[in-house]
């Protein structure tokens, strides 16, 4: 057993928390050139362009869907704007079979892994093709095929789950790890402590990726914690940690690649704190003008991670203005077309109200569903979605149910 050991002292000497400060890892300047002495990660043109496309697609999707929400076509939306480099840069450094457990602002990870706009739209509109069967609010995506755990609204619950998931991966011995995303606000929840402590004690291959974007809804990080961000907490757990410029795609990618190596080769958890800024509102229900200045936002807009990467691609001779224009146009068109398709699709069948609560529908749930169907058929105009989603062979069920009563 290893115990904490300390050198003896014989005077009451306190160490102050503010003595800890952690440097920020940066490679790329806003004009697309590297810092002096910095080396870009090995990234070939194809992968660099795939990353860039995913970042741009995330931005386009977010802009169009926020507009759709404002038009009343969508009940709710959350944007990734300003944090695309953090999310996509990290995802591109993972193996495609590594599990991602996200908070709710990581659509860029899904886009990078190949989730289609149709798949996004089906979830956003909760139609019959939504993998989640229209049960959750918009933006709660999930994909088993793409190793992306379905989003859960309660904050930070995914963090200890990631530790458990990754422990299972370690036992399975397939060389995979789990990357879990969360904001600096979520790091205040008890789940964060539980997750990091258990991961360090049990030597679990998990990457804790904190998107420090400055605000938890309206609460600025300065009211969230007194320390130098989230990163110093890793010392308390004896864990590897790095702070990175979250708007610097090359730095995020390099840091995550190295974190994955530590996680998988040494079965050690790693904490990454990506310093960024949430350029958009917290959600479509939030108005940031109530708690921060336009000036502050403008200053961060000048550090736009997408523009920074575009400049770098131009420096490499891998991208042109024409290509940019064509990409933007085709993405916009695709978003609009897929949105129209998804809107027209019917809701999930009424039976899906009671499936997946348990592996099998219980007799009590079946009774409740049968009663509901009888009611909906009596008042179809009051339950238009339910009436539309009634299955055609209810007639038989109904006769049986009447007999039971």
């Amino acid at each position, binding site marked *: 057993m290893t115990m904490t050991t300390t050198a003896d002292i014989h005077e009451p000497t306190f160490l102050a928390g503010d003595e800890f400060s952690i440097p920020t890892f940066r490679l790329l300047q806003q004009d697309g050139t590297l810092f002096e002495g910095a080396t870009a990660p090995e990234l070939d043109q194809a992968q660099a362009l795939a990353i860039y496309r995913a970042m741009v697609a995330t931005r386009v999707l977010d802009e169009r869907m926020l507009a759709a929400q404002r038009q009343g076509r969508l009940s709710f939306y959350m944007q990734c704007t300003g944090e695309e480099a953090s999310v996509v840069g990290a995802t591109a450094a993972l193996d495609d079979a590594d*599990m991602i*457990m996200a908070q709710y602002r990581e659509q860029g990870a899904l886009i990078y892994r190949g989730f289609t706009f149709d798949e996004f739209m089906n979830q956003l509109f909760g139609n019959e093709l*939504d*993998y*989640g*069967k229209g*049960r*959750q609010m918009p933006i*709660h995506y*999930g*994909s*088993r095929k793409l190793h992306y*755990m*379905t989003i*859960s609204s*309660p904050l930070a*619950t995914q*963090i*200890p*789950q*990631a*530790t*458990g*998931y*990754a*422990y*299972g*991966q370690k*036992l*399975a011995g397939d060389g995979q790890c*789990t990357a879990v995303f969360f904001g600096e606000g979520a790091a205040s929840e*008890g*789940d964060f*402590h*539980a*997750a990091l*402590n*258990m991961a360090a*004690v*049990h030597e679990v291959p998990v990457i804790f990726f904190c998107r420090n974007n400055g605000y938890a809804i309206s609460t600025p990080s300065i009211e969230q914690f007194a320390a130098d961000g989230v990163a110093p907490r890793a010392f308390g757990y004896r864990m590897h940690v790095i702070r990175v410029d979250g708007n610097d795609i090359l730095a995020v990618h390099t840091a995550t690649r190295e974190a994955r190596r530590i996680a998988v080769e040494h079965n050690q958890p790693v904490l990454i704190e990506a310093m960024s800024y949430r350029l958009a509102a917290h959600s479509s229900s939030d108005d940031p003008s109530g708690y921060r200045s336009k000036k502050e936002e403008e200053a961060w807009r000048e550090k736009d991670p997408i523009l920074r990467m575009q400049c770098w691609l131009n420096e490499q001779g891998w991208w042109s203005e024409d290509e940019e224009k064509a990409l933007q146009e085709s993405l916009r068109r695709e978003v609009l077309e897929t949105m129209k398709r998804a809107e027209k699709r019917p809701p999930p069948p009424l039976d*899906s109200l009671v*499936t*997946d*609560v*348990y*592996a*099998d529908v*219980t*007799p*009590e749930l079946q009774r409740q569903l049968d009663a509901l169907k009888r009611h909906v058929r009596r008042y179809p105009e009051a339950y238009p979605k339910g009436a539309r989603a009634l299955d055609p062979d209810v007639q038989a069920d109904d006769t049986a149910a009447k007999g039971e009563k």
Partner: protein
Amino acid sequence: MPTMNMLQAINNALDIAMGEDDKVLCFGEDVGSFGGVFRATSHLQEKYGRARCFNTPLVEQGIIGFANGLAAQGSVPVAEIQFADYIFPAFDQIVNETAKFRYRSGDLFNVGGLTIRAPYGGGISGGLYHSQSPEAYFAHTPGLKIVVPRDPYQAKGLLLAAIRDPDPVLFFEPKRLYRAAVGEVPEEDYQLPIGEAEVIREGSDVTLVGWGAQMEVIERAVELAEKDGISCEVIDLRSLLPWDQETVAESVLKTGRLVITHEAPRTGGFAGEIAAAIQERCFLYLESPIARVTGLDTPFPLTLEKEYLPDHLKIVEAIRDSVNF
């Protein structure tokens, strides 16, 4: 057939499950080499290694959060919460995560492999924080299954069923009976059904419903009632979620009377749910009001726990009142 106490039966079930499937893991506070504070996991670490049976840090929300992730990954975790009183730090993980994993993802992901074991109940001079019966909080949550064994035979058969059940199961163990209940337990692997009540005594005048440690108390009350010439039908619910309405309703249609008993406080207790459901189904057949014999609406006391608990005398009084209504 060997004789075992309830802890030995639980240990035996875990041993069988771990021996059969290397995806089964046991963990919790003090669960490792020490074998758990009640010794339910004795020798499992020796036998199956530290990777599959281990101590966790003292953090219930972490234990269940970890277990949720592990189960979603495809492992079969059996997480121990040292006392049911301490399950509340994990409440969010159980109610919002465990229970809803399959539903919210449209079955893309589920945590069906998860079993949460927790010793519950009074009668051990445990006071406020080592005696509670928190089942009703969880019985309000679709997606969970709740199982409570009454003796060693049930403990083994139901725990093996819980571990292999496709849904997450909360397994509340009556700790007063851990060593007190001794009985014959087959050595081999067997399962008892989850979701089915068991009629353990047939009778014609009144139906008695309980679960876990209350079954022993009910038996003592029934012996007294039978001396009065009252014929009692006794039902062990075994599973609280889902619960077996059919068996209870069928019995009440026959006897016309129902007495329900549990240790937890009365208000919002699970007896209220049973009473409501049964009067919906059996209203015209009832000869007397459905009676509840429960703990008081107070925290669980220390010195006066005998007074607090729904014992055989309180139950026999309820039986007499019901029959003589």
